[in-house]
């Protein structure tokens, strides 16, 4: 993604010109002014009198061919030529930096950095090869800033395309041209990780279960009892599974129970919950089972058979009050 014209490590300072609070969203006038300033760099040099750090050489050719999996015999042995697509490689600054890079190009990138367009990605490379490069060829190059686009919005973010055109010479003779386009952009903002937790889902209360939720509001866990056969049932249903009777009354759970089964939720994350967390199926001493959370113990300490006791927890938020039955590990139950 770099070229003979690479991104500087730091933005060039631009006195008295603070970056906009939201990069790429500066006011219309500011954007227009920036656009005009950027356009002024068109036609100015990007690199002048650049010199390749190494002459074309067999080891770099071999390393390239190994990386690319290119076994073309034209690139090896006596009479080898360099893969033409290495054209840009011979102009790269590497870790020690560039030669010949122009002040104008540094200024242009610095201007964009300061305006908040700090990221860079290469988008286009167009090369024409005029003659083969052979080991021993000394590389020199010059480059010009061919164009700076209008401000564009892409999937990566908003920014400006900068196109440079480089003339590469070998032993002073034209060897190829290299047109390179980068997008200098302000990354599109992603959802911050510390976003406010969304509200906990509310129970769906209807005619069949309203009595249960009214009980919860009074800190009572109510179990239905069939009016026909006295079978206890939970969750609440209009009729009895055992005898079909629609008659029922309620008994209040004592609150004692044990973990009958459980799962630990890791994925998918829901915004209202912090994974990992345990979801338990608690068997009450009355014999019915209820899905709930186990509190007072880490998620990875929840076990089948763990003795638990009912309590009522508040989950009030901007939607209002919310009380839910949860189960706390009974003393002596942990570990």
């Amino acid at each position, binding site marked *: *993604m*770099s070229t003979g014209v*690479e*991104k500087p490590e730091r933005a060039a300072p631009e006195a008295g010109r603070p970056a906009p609070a939201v990069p790429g969203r500066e006011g219309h006038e500011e954007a227009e002014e920036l656009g005009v300033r950027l356009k002024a760099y068109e036609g100015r040099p990007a690199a002048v009198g650049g010199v390749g750090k190494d002459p074309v050489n067999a080891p*770099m050719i071999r*390393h*390239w061919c*190994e*990386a*690319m*999996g*290119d076994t*073309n*015999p*034209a690139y090896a042995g006596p009479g080898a030529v360099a*893969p*033409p*697509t*290495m054209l*840009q*490689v011979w102009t*790269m*600054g*590497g*870790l020690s930096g560039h030669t010949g890079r122009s002040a104008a190009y540094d200024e242009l990138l610095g201007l964009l950095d300061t305006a908040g367009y700090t*990221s860079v*990605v*290469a*988008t*286009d*490379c*167009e*090369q*024409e*090869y005029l003659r*083969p490069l052979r080991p021993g060829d000394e590389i020199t190059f010059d480059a010009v800033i061919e164009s700076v686009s209008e401000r564009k919005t892409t999937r990566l973010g908003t920014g400006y395309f900068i196109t440079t055109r480089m003339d590469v010479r070998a032993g002073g003779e034209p060897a190829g041209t290299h047109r390179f386009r980068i997008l200098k952009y302000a*990354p599109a903002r*992603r959802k911050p990780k510390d976003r406010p937790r969304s509200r906990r889902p509310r129970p769906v209360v209807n005619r069949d279960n309203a009595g249960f939720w009214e009980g919860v509001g009074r800190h009572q866990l109510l179990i239905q009892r069939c009016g026909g056969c006295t079978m206890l049932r939970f969750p609440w249903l209009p009729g009895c599974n055992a005898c079909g009777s629609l008659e029922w009354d309620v008994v209040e759970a004592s609150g004692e129970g044990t973990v009958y089964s459980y799962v630990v939720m890791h994925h998918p994350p829901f915004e209202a919950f912090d994974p990992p967390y345990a979801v338990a199926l608690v068997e009450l001493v009355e014999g019915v089972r209820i899905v709930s959370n186990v509190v007072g113990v880490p998620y990875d300490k929840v076990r089948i058979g763990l003795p638990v006791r009912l309590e009522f927890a508040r989950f009030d938020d901007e939607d209002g009050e919310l009380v839910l039955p949860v189960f706390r590990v009974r003393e002596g139950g942990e570990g």
Partner: protein
Amino acid sequence: MREGEELPPLEIPITRTLIVAGAIASRDYQDVHHDAELARQKGSPDIFMNILTTNGLVGRYVTDHFGPDAVLRKVAIRLGAPNYPGDTMVLTGSVESVAVGIATVRVVGENGIGRHVTGTVTVTLPPGGVS
């Protein structure tokens, strides 16, 4: 060879090794091509292949097909979906035009998330042509 002829596809596993080896062989030390942590800090899910490596692979794909006597004259590529480690890129090509001793090939490289590269390669062919 005739216009419209398809080149056999070339499947390239995008390994971390290929990405790093390609970046270093092209003397491109931008951290997004070798340091996953810094790449993530810059908003990328992982390191990704640099454009010089893509360029080299496109060139190789064409010369692999036409043989060692074919010579690349122009390679023009445009990048789209990045090549991340663990993905596979499949290069396909079709001969766009053929004249005496010269052919233009349209190359496309698709990976698991979309179109990584589209390009046009002009190659000169030895007298007598290639199969």
